[in-house]
């Protein structure tokens, strides 16, 4: 018993340094954000303005909506590479079900706005369900399954628009995507609500706990009698639906629906989640981390436009920042495992 008591007191008197080390995954992204903001504020007078904060928020909104679902997936130690394609096909679908101007040369099916929205949501949920079944029932690794889905969704998009561009979407979507209320863009509000909802689900519901437990130790979750496949399937559907909502609002935000419109959002969403400090090994992190990650990316993208820098160099800088975040992510996991031993 004596060794156990020693261990207990050891735990209580562990001090600040080990605590900080175990919290590194939360602290590091935050420090990065403060550093980047400080740097750009110092380097450019136009960066630290209220107007520009609004710009940053608007710029990260679509990524934020998509990243909500992806956070669930990565918390389960899975990945979803089909989010950008599913966003694209859902955005195209909602336009496909809306009456377009006569000069748009797409053989589409105009339906009432509400029906168009519901059908589009069903479409992305269905694609997510296919991901879920492939992962859980057939046992295809999510990396490969969603890679296939990426192609499938891109294929459906191509068939629907056939190289053309559609412009009209239901008025509700137009409002939420490009309108604003009291000076605040609706899309920012939607992103905030979805992030908040994601946070509440992960923190306060039984399902959220299961997500963390499945990600933390899948074997143990199964030995605890959890329906691991059901939980994994659910997060894949959540991910696809979040991507779909992001896609619909994105189409309204950009003002058009076309092929390959969302390609950059795959990397951006994964980057936001991982840069924020959610563990790629599952079980650690959450929406709070994703929000910090979104701001890091948003500040970086926006800030680089404010400083006088070779625009081709920006791509390289983004890549390097991502790499640094990955190193921290893996390193933080190791530190934590050490602390737990």
């Amino acid at each position, binding site marked *: 018993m004596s060794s156990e008591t020693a261990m207990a007191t050891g735990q209580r008197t562990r001090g600040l340094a080990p605590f900080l080390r175990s919290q590194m995954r939360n602290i590091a992204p935050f420090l990065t954000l403060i550093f980047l903001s400080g740097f750009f504020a110092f380097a450019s007078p136009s960066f630290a303005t209220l107007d520009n904060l609004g710009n940053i928020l608007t710029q990260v909104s679509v990524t934020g909506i998509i990243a909500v679902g992806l956070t669930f997936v990565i918390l389960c130690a899975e990945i979803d590479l089909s989010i950008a394609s599913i966003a694209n096909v859902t955005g195209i679908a909602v336009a496909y079900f809306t009456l377009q101007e006569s000069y748009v040369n797409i053989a589409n099916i105009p339906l009432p706005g509400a029906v168009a929205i519901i059908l589009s949501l069903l479409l992305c949920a269905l694609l997510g369900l296919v991901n879920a079944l492939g992962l859980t029932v057939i046992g295809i690794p999510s990396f490969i399954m969603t890679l296939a889905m990426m192609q499938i969704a891109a294929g459906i998009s191509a068939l629907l628009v056939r190289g053309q561009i559609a412009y009209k979407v239901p008025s509700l979507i137009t409002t939420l995507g490009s309108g604003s209320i009291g000076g605040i863009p609706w899309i920012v509000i939607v992103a905030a609500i979805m992030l908040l909802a994601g946070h509440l689900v992960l923190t306060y519901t039984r399902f959220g706990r299961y997500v963390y437990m499945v990600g933390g130790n899948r074997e143990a979750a199964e030995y605890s*009698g959890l329906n691991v496949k059901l939980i994994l399937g659910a997060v894949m559907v959540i991910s696809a639906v979040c991507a779909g909502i992001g896609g619909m609002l994105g189409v309204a935000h950009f003002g058009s629906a076309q092929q390959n419109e969302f390609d950059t959002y795959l990397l951006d969403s994964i980057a936001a989640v991982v840069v924020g400090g959610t563990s790629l090994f599952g079980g650690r992190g959450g929406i709070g981390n994703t929000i910090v990650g979104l701001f890091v990316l948003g500040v970086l993208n926006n800030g680089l436009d404010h400083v006088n820098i070779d625009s081709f160099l920006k791509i390289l800088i983004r890549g390097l920042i991502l790499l640094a975040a990955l190193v921290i992510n893996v390193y933080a996991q190791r530190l934590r495992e050490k602390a737990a031993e």
Partner: protein
Amino acid sequence: MSVGQQPILELQGITKSFGGVEALRGVDFALYPGEIHGLVGENGAGKSTLMKIIAGVHTEFSGRFLVDGRDMHFRSARDAHAAGIAMVHQELSVAPDLTVAENVFLGNQPTNALGLVQWRRMAREAGEQLARFGIDVDPMARLGDLPIGLQQLIEIARVLFSGARIVILDEPTSALSPPEVERLFTTLRRLREEGTAIVFISHFIEDILLVSDTVTVFRNGRKVAETASAATSKGALIEAMIGRGGEALEHSYTDDLMLPQPSGSKVVLEADQLSLSRSLQDVSFEARAGEVLGIYGFMGCGQQELSRILFGKLKPDSGTLAVEGVPKIFASTAAARRAGVALVPESRRDMLFHQEPVYKNISISILDRISSLLLKPAQERDIAKRQVDQLQIRPPVVGLDLGMLSGGNQQKVALAKWLTYPPKLLVLCEPTRGMDVGAKNDVINIVRDLRTRGLAIIVLSTEPETVLSLADRILVLKRGALVREFKNEPVSKDRLLEAA
């Protein structure tokens, strides 16, 4: 047999301790060329530690170590390999996705001048080597597609034909069928004639007596007997292994223990003719309310597979389960849990969340009973607190990360997660393995208390003490089949070992 001959390997006064606990105390051991030397002893008696010293796995120890009469000190398994010593470990260490030939030549494939692998030569030579061993198999077949027993034979063949002069086999027969065992023995005898020295560790004393020339018995880190195999018997070896009188404080279970009259209470679980490829054959039994059913057997006898079938983690090839008379085929562990079955596997790592606090570990299996949508953390902590107090988990802090607890306390947490809403059937695998006496007794008392509360409990263990200390009725599982039932009769460690 070895008068005048120089031992190929000689150990003198070997002592090895792990963190203050002596695993070996002053052991002398000599191995002669052309000898098959059997090693027996209970789990933890020191056999494996000694063999790992010989194979260069453990490099820190005191005592003399001579090969061919010369002092040696291995710094790694590579050194041992260079000295002609090879070991086949109990767990398979093959590359299932490579071909048979690649596995046979793992690490030293024949190459041409350009460094390219000579596939045809490799396949031919692998085929020849295996044929010598009586294994007729396509050298280019993927190893993982072959039955486990054959894979094990191929691994053994690889080591036997690697040119090693000293070969250590740790439990080589547990996954083999009787004809495969026979094939192995034939090969071992042939190698003996060629002058190879072989150490053969096994729980199967019949096998040891059948194939070895000399047999050495270990108990509590000491060598307690060394005799010619022809001059001893199974009974005598078992007696030497477990000792008489029991020097330890613990109950040694060497004397007869009377099992109670079966109560005839309600049958909670009925297993009928469960079979699983090579692991289980027609296993049938029932577990009753208020009774602890012990299932004893050696490592690899099919216990692990059986427990997984009961909890829906594995599906049997054939056979049925019934819970309280209702036939069930569990599609998932979740289904088994809903039907009232709970499992504590032998490895705590498999069922606990080390980076999560104690209370989340305890509440995970009952969340759906205390909350529908939203979590109730206060209630979770209350429940956990009650379990922690009841099971005397130390330190009694439910918010502490589980990884901070000692092994014994983690095992109690593993039990605690099933006890708030007790299941109908609790399946415990190795519930006291690796625990100190105090924690062991705590667990024993918890299980006894659960029995009086009317649970049906199944305890599966490879340690006779565990089964004897808990069970009201004992089944013996041997190579996947139930071979003996002890009930309402005297039982002891000897009798169990004899039956297995």
